[in-house]
């Protein structure tokens, strides 16, 4: 069987991003393999360990994505295909380009992150399924293969359901699917020798980003003085937590 993880490279959550001329400036950010995609990489490796076959990494993005691809190979995937294009591409256009490469690979299972860490887009997995005409299971927390079919558990808004889907199919990940392994040192050394097939593409984005901004969060700095009337202060605190913060 063949298992594919579609991955992206995103800024580390601890990176400080800044806006330069209406664009997010990534030049000083640490870029990593998206943690939601990391679940996908772990899952394809586990599927391969269990069912044999091949685990393949597929990425679409600028040249710099190669570092994230190497990380996925160091975790244990067999080889990679990197569709190279600089600049922004909307998820639908990405999915169309990826679908072409995926069709040629003819995998049984495609996994990708449920949500891209930086832009919060959840579109890629379902868009790939749509482009391929395959079923999709989103927010997957458990995945088992049996007799050419998959049994998957996935999160709903306030609950979960277990489904059976025919293969090939696309699955998007959710936290809890697995515990991704570290790329080991021997894995890092072996990854150097693994194949990354680079395919330059020139897709035209259907969406153009005109301007980007980062939400500034500032604290309200509300301080309740409990020294004079602690009872009143406690009541006020409870009222604020209940009515304004809405946490209790």
């Amino acid at each position, binding site marked *: 069987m063949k298992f594919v993880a579609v991955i992206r490279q995103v800024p580390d959550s601890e990176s400080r991003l800044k806006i330069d001329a209406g664009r997010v400036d990534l030049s000083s950010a640490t870029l990593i393999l998206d943690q939601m995609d990391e679940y996908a990489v772990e899952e394809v490796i586990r599927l391969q360990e269990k069912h044999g076959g091949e685990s393949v990494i597929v990425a679409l993005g600028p040249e710099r994505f190669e570092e994230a691809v190497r990380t996925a190979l160091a975790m244990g995937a067999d080889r990679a295909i990197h569709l190279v294009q600089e600049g922004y591409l909307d998820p639908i256009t990405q999915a169309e380009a990826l679908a072409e490469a995926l069709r040629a690979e003819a995998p049984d299972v495609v996994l990708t992150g449920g949500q891209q860490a930086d832009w919060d887009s959840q579109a890629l997995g379902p868009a790939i399924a749509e482009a391929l005409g395959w079923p999709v299971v989103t927010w997957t927390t458990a995945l088992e293969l049996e007799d050419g079919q998959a049994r998957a558990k996935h999160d709903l808004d306030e609950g979960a359901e277990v489904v059976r889907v025919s293969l090939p199919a696309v699955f998007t990940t959710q936290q809890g699917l697995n515990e991704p392994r570290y790329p*080991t*040192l021997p894995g890092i050394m072996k990854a150097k020798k693994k194949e990354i097939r680079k395919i330059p593409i020139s897709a035209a984005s259907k969406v153009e980003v005109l301007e980007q901004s980062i939400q500034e969060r500032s604290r309200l700095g509300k301080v309740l003085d409990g020294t004079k009337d602690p009872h009143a202060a406690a009541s006020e605190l409870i009222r604020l937590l209940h009515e304004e913060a809405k946490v209790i």
Partner: protein
Amino acid sequence: MPIDFSLTDEQKELQKLARRFAREQIAPVAAEYDAREEVPWPIIEKLHGVGLLNAIIPEEYGGLGLGMLEEVIIGEELAWGCMGIYTIPMASDLGITPILLAGSHEQKQRFFKKLTEKPALAAFALSEPGNGSDAAALRTRAVRDGDYYVLNGTKTWISNGGEAEVVVVFATINPEARHKGVIALVVEKGTPGFKANKLHGKMGQRASGTYELVFEDCRVPAANLLGKEGDGFKIAMNTLDKTRIPVAAGSVGLARRALEEATKYAKEREAFGRPIAEFQAIQFKLAEMLMGIETARAYTYYAAWLTDQGLPQAHAAAIAKAYASEMAFEAANQAIQIHGGYGYMHEYPVEKLLRDVKLNQIYEGTNEIQRLIIARHILSG
């Protein structure tokens, strides 16, 4: 292009791995193991799992054959998480190095197998209760008896001594001959007559196990002799010339942690109506820290590079070790100063940095011994 400061992709990847390991696996539990003075065996197992343990063992013996530069890159990252915990793999490399330098093919096969097939540690036993810097004055006796050496004596301050599968023990077959009478013997865990007592009450680096080793008529196969009789002192010195470079790397990592903690605190803490980071008195301290970190790292890399090139490096290792450990001591000290009263408390991580880094000025040759090595290098020219 004679000078190149860039890391290879592979080195960047292993740096990333070690950094992530330190952040996710070491830093969150460091204070707890420090308080309990307990060896974090689950971390040793995980280090083995990702290949960061005993990785200097050559590939033909089941290791990864990492060079000194790779070791230094990893060392800085792990020590950022906890210097005491980093001392465990570092001291294991210290135990591996004499076997690497002087062991036969058969000995390497036999001992390295034990250190690669499962999470396991090595140790290096030179110091004794009555001698440290004057290594040639050691008293542990080895008497040849047929195919064995019979060991009697006591070693102390031995990192990993009680956990280690193999301990390289330095003993004398003739105390009168001083350094010419020294032999290096590999003693395996569980050898009858060999006992390890854990030393309690350390100031810092409390997650690393430090032991007193007692040998009472301990019979060690003569097949475990590294090199030949009389080689021991040279083996010990050549080992330390290499292994004090990772001490420098650990110091750099610890100093980097001190700077990060101090920076974070200085931006948050307010005095006179503004963050203390806005005061020059604080800014100068932070700047001094970075000056120290950058220069110590650059020099540590240089010492590692000399080692990997097979060039003379004893003086460079000594400079790196003494300079980096003193720089890091000052960085930890200033990080506490910036934290004020909070820095003196266990709740903040900076007091531990100072307690931990003190040992970097003492072990693997005190900084005074490093200066003797450096002076000898100057005067022998």
